[in-house]
Every structure is written in C-alpha cells, then in structure tokens.
C-alpha cells in the first residue's frame, strides 16, 4: 500500500484526509502552550528597544511640527521664505552629495528636477484651490491629516519581526504616510497668498520632512538637540510659555511613561496564544 502523503495545512488542496482531521502536531503544540502559560512569564521583551521605538516616534512627531513652524513663518509673520529655502536646499544637496555615489546622484538629480518643476507648475493652481473655503475648515482638515499621519507612522514600521523573531525589511511598507504628509502640506499651501510662498513652503516641507529623515538619522543626538531647540523656541515665541510647558509635559510623558505602560501591557495583559496564531493562522494563497 502506498504511503499517505503528509497532511498540509492548506484548504485549497484536495487531500486524502477527512474534513475534521486534526494534525497530531497541533495537539502537541497546544499541550506545550498550556504548560507554558502556567509558568511565570519569561522576560524576553527588550525594554531598551521599546524605549528607542518610542523615542523615534517622538522625533518623527517633532519633525512634523516643522510643517506648522514653516507655515507660521510664511503665513503669520509674513517673512520672506526665499533665504530659508535656499539654505535648506543647500544643506540637503550637500548631505546627499556627500552620501551617495555618482549614479545615484544622477538619478536623484532627475527626480529632484521632476519634483521641483511639478511643484513650480502646480503652485499657482494650489494657490487658488481653496480660496472660497473657510480657513477654519482647512485648519481642521490639516489637523485630521496630521493625526492620521502620526497614526500611519506608528502602524506601518519599516521593519517587522518575522516568524523566527528576527528583524527583516517590511515588504508591505506603505507610501501612505508620505502621501498624507504631502497632502497636509498641500492643503496648508493652498492658504498662502503668492505663488513664491506656495513653492517655497512645499519645497521646505518636502525636504525637511521627507528627504532629511531618509538621509540622516533624526534620533542622532546633535540633530535631535537642534530639532528640540527649534520646536520649543518657536512654540514659546508663537504660543507662550504655558503652551510650551504643556507640550514639554506631554512629550516627557510619551518618552518616559508610555514605554513603561506598554512594557507592562506586553508582559501582563497581552494574549499568550499569539504564537499559535502566528503558526496556525489562515494562510494566504501565493499566486505567482
């Protein structure tokens, strides 16, 4: 008699097993899991990693604040945006030339030209886009987009754990967060008065919020210090000491208290059977 083929955990294959067949391995695994849950929890969660992740998120949030700082700079104080733009662009070019090789820089040159001309072409259209809309609705829209941006940042990490617990590049890394950021910048840009302002604002936003975080590590101590300095001083300038103090409290809480809470949740409240779920979850057919 022919040896039976081993059972596969795939529903779309016709197999020579009854419908209610239970794999003996599964029973073994469930048994093991039961034993494991009786033991005290093993502390295999890396607290320093959690803290570093929260710090990175904090830096990203600080980074998004630059959009509003630039907007206030151009729209409220009505300063000339051209020198700032020139400085930022110069820095970005310097860093990118320093970093990348010849071929990459050529490609970058092409795409940066495309971006610059796209912004240049569309800025007159953007300028007139929300002329008839009330300012308040634009601020609300921008706030919602920003919240959504932070949420999408925290929910789509650039690296994920695979089944064996190693960090790998996330294959499903999404463009969504970048797009929301761009949309936020464009919505704000539609409130500006002149085409130059729109162009400069978009250029600064793209460079500071998208290109620089990709080129440099924004959690680096020097850059982080600079970012904090700029953000807090501008909040103090525009909104006063109280607002800066509240902002400081919130950020301290998110750096110090939230990671601890998260750690506590992971150790005590998280479902213990996620391992069985990851091993025995519904499989997605691979079509290629």
């Amino acid at each position, binding site marked *: 008699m022919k040896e039976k083929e081993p059972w596969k955990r795939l529903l779309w294959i016709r197999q020579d097993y009854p419908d209610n067949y239970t794999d003996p391995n599964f029973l073994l695994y469930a048994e093991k899991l039961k034993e494991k849950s009786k033991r005290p929890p093993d502390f295999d969660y890396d607290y320093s990693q959690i803290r570093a992740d929260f710090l990175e998120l904090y830096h990203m949030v600080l980074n998004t604040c630059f959009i509003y700082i630039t907007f206030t700079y151009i729209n409220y104080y009505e300063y000339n945006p051209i020198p700032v733009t020139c400085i930022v662009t110069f820095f970005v070019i310097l860093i990118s030339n320093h970093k990348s090789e010849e071929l990459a820089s050529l490609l970058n040159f092409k795409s940066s030209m495309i971006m610059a001309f*796209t912004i240049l072409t569309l800025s007159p259209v953007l300028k007139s886009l929300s002329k008839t809309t009330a300012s308040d609705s634009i601020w609300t829209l921008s706030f919602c987009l920003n919240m959504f941006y932070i949420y999408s940042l925290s929910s789509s990490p650039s690296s994920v754990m695979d089944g064996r617990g190693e960090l790998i590049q996330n294959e499903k890394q999404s463009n969504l967060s970048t797009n929301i950021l761009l949309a936020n910048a464009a919505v704000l840009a539609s409130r500006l008065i002149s085409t130059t302002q729109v162009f400069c604002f978009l250029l600064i936003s793209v460079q500071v919020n*998208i290109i620089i975080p990709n080129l440099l590590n924004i959690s680096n101590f020097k850059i982080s210090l600079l970012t904090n300095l700029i953000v807090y001083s501008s909040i103090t300038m525009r909104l006063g000491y109280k607002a800066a103090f509240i902002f400081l409290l919130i950020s301290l809480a998110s750096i110090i208290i939230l990671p601890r809470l998260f750690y506590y949740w992971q150790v005590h409240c998280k479902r213990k059977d996620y391992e069985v779920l990851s091993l025995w979850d519904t499989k997605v057919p691979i079509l290629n």
Partner: protein
Amino acid sequence: MFCNVLEFEAPKLNLMQFFSLDPISLALPEKELHNSKKVTLDNVKKIMYHKSYFNFSGNLPQSINLLNLYYTHLNAFSEKYSHLIIGENRLSEKLFSILLKCYQHSFLSRVTSRLLFYLLMSLCFIAQNIYLLLHWSYFPIVTISATLQQIDLRCQQIAYFPVQYLKINKNVTIRKALPRFRSYSEASASLRSELPCKFYPDYIRLYNTIWLIVNDVSFGLIIGAILHDQHDQLVNIVASSIQFCCYDSIKKITIFLSNNPFGIKLNEELASFLSELFLWIIEFTFNGFAKYFVDKSNLSWFLSLLTQIMCLSGASFGLSLIMDFFSILSLHLYLFYHISGKLYHWQLNCMISLFYLFCGKKRNVLRDRIDHHFFELDQLLMGTLLFLILVFLMPTVLAFYICYTILRLMAMCVEIFLESIIGLINHFPLFALLLRIKDPKRLPGGISINWNRTEPGLTIFTLENNPLKISRMFRPYSILMSKIRYNYFSSYTARQILKGLPLTLNRTKLYHVLYFSLPDGPIKARDIYAKLSDALANP
C-alpha cells in the same frame, strides 16, 4: 353504467371560430416573446412532469381538431347520406356564390386584378428600396430621426402586405380543398391538424395593420383640424415657450452655477470657465439654427406643414416630426450633458487611480486586482498634488454635471412620452381587441372544461373557449415599459449617472419589441413577384 358527456358549441370555421389548446400568438412565431417568469423551482418541475399530472396519450389535440372540423364533417355526411339530412341551403347564399363565380371568370376581373397586381408590386418595390436606403449598413440613418423611423415602419408594412396576403390565401385554398378529403387518410389528417391556428394570426395581423393605418390617418385629420383652427395662438405660445424653456432659463441656470449656488463654495476659476464654455455653446446653437426656428414666420410655416402632413399621412408622422423638431431644439442640452459627463467621468477615473497611489497601491491589469506597490518620491509628490487638486475641483464639476443631467433627463422624459404615443398609434392591438369584444371565440386562448349538471348516471360538462387574455395582447407594451423603466428610472440609471457614463439607448433597438408583427428583414421583391403571379395565374 356511469359516463361523462362533454357538451360544446360547434365552432363555425367560416366565421373563423375555433378551439385551440394554446393561446394564439399575435406576434410572428419567430418573434414570440417568452415569458421571463418561467417556473424554475426543481420541485415544481418534478410535480409538473409527474405521471399523474402528465398526459402521455396526446388524445386531446386530436379531439380538439376533430371538434374544430365539426361542420366540415357534417357537410361530408350530408353529401353522402343526403336522405338523412333535413333542411337545405338558403337561396341567397347560392345566388351569391354563382355571381361570385361569374365575376371571377370574367374579363373585367382579370384586368382589375392585373392592374392591382402591378400597382401593388411597384409600391412594394419602392418601399423595399426605401427600406434598404434607410438601413444602409455604413450609416443607418433610420436611427437618427423619428420621422425616418416612421417612414421605415410604413415601408416595412407595405412590403410585408403581399406576403401576408399570400399566407392567408394559401390557407384559404387548402380550406376550400378540404371537403374533398372525405376519408380519414393520413395525409388529410395531418392537413386537418394544422388547419386553423396556422393562418389565422396572419389574418389578425394584416387587418390590425390596416386598421391602425386607417386609424392613424383619422387621428391625423382630427389633430390637423385642431391645429389649423388654433394656428395663430399656437405659433405665439410655441415661440415664447421655446425661447423660455430652451434658452432663457438654461442661460439663467448656467450663470447661477458660476456664482456659488445655494452657498456651496465652488472653485471660482473653474466654475467661471465652465459656465463661459456652456454660455458660448448656448449662443452658438441659438445663433446657428434655433433663431430661425423661434422666428414666428418660420414657425407658422412649420406648423402649417405639420398640419398638412398630419392630414395626409397620419398623426404618427406629425408626432415624429414634432419629436425631431424637439430633439434639434434640445441639441445643446444633449451636448452639455455629454461634455459635463465626460469631464466628470474622466475626473472620477483619475481620482480613483490616484487614490490607489495615495494608499501606496496600484491596479494590476494582468490579474485584475489591486496590488501593493512602492512608489518613488517624485511619483508620490506628483500623484498626491494632482489628487488633492482634483478633490478640490470635484464639487464644481459635480454641480455642473448634476444640473445638466437633470435637464437632460427632463428632455428625455418628453421624448419618451412622445415616442410612447407614437408607439401606441403604430402598434396598438386594436383589431384583436375589437375582435375580443365582438366574438371572443375568434380569439382562442386555450380551453376550459366546466361542470354543467349531473343527471342520473350522467355527468355533463361543457367545453368552453377561453378568450385570449388582454394582458397577453399587451405583452409587448409591458416589456417595452419595463425596458424603459430599467433604462431611465432604476438603480441601473443611478449607477450610470454616478459613474458619469452616458445614458443613451438605441431607439430602434428599444422599439424593436413593438415590431412583433413584422419580419426582421424584407422579403425579396422578386420572390413576392413570382409567388403572386403564380397565385394570379391559378386562382
């Protein structure tokens, strides 16, 4: 012994009464419209085909045919056993038949029939050529205009008359020859079995068409007379209403749309551009041709032409002329609807694909699904900026689109109303309806066997003719109405409008269902000629 007796009133074949198991069809057999609500439940099907409900013997059709030929058999019987029969033919009938025979063999009859024959053939020939011209395969102009469609219908009817005559005539000759089959031979049985139901619908169709044409002309005369009487007032009313409905009010609406309608904040630049574009089209159509239509002397001339056409060739021609006039006048509405629809559709499609880009996804055409895709920064920037711009411009385009769609739908309602009246005038089952009132036995729609009375040892039933149901006569209309409802007043329409796809329907295709008594293509004039001359040679 117990037995059942079935009583029936013998159908008079010469009065075209007969029994039929199935309802006779008013449409041509190849255009028979099947009921869409067929029984599809498996259990019901099983019951229907069960032994106890199913008649395998097939005696009933034969018996019915025998009943239909009651008087034929009676004649045969009386000729064979004349001494058993009491009563005689009436004198007047005999005299009439002798006179008819004399006439049929006279010179006069031959001359008149020849003349009629050539007249009919030339008419038929002309009608067929017009039909072919209208249905030119490269550009079937019949689809453009209602008047041309009306001409086409008349041509088809005229070209089909000889064929119908031949069909009826052939059956009449068989009927005449029937008394010769006195024995129950197989050949005569098969001939008998397909006797009345075969030619009879053709007879109804032919006379229905003729009745309708006569009716149409009489309606035309009435309406034409009214139009003639009210000529001057009508010219004034029509001129001012065209000016108001088709130009002034639409101009007002377009200008209103460009100035933040109902407090909705539209994009100023785009709104003013679009309204200027549409105003320009209005001016162009008005100065191009509508000015001449609105001009009172021209309108008066048109109205008198309409009156004359109505008096000469019927109300349907006049109505189709009015419809063409209306569609020319509402041409700019048609253009507006299509322009704004195209804009909207294009924008919607762009927005959908850019939204995929926004979410970091991309449509996979090969597998017809949405796949994850990582875009470069320059692509993202361009896509997102364009997406935002389109989102902000959407309300403006949408406002114009909705407004013009509503206007177009209103114009469509007028067109549908006129077309349904024309359809009613052209295809109303008038003859069948009158026949149903006059003598329901001539329109059999199946039989029923009812209990009559019980005598000792004897149950008496009566066999009755169920007249054709009125809903069955009007089935093409109900189908047409449901089609119209599906195309213009349903969720399908709403979906089509939401997607920005055009709401157009081929008129000839839509009204095709009403051409149930006409064949699809014309029958060749040469064949008709050969057959008709045959029939003429052997009367």
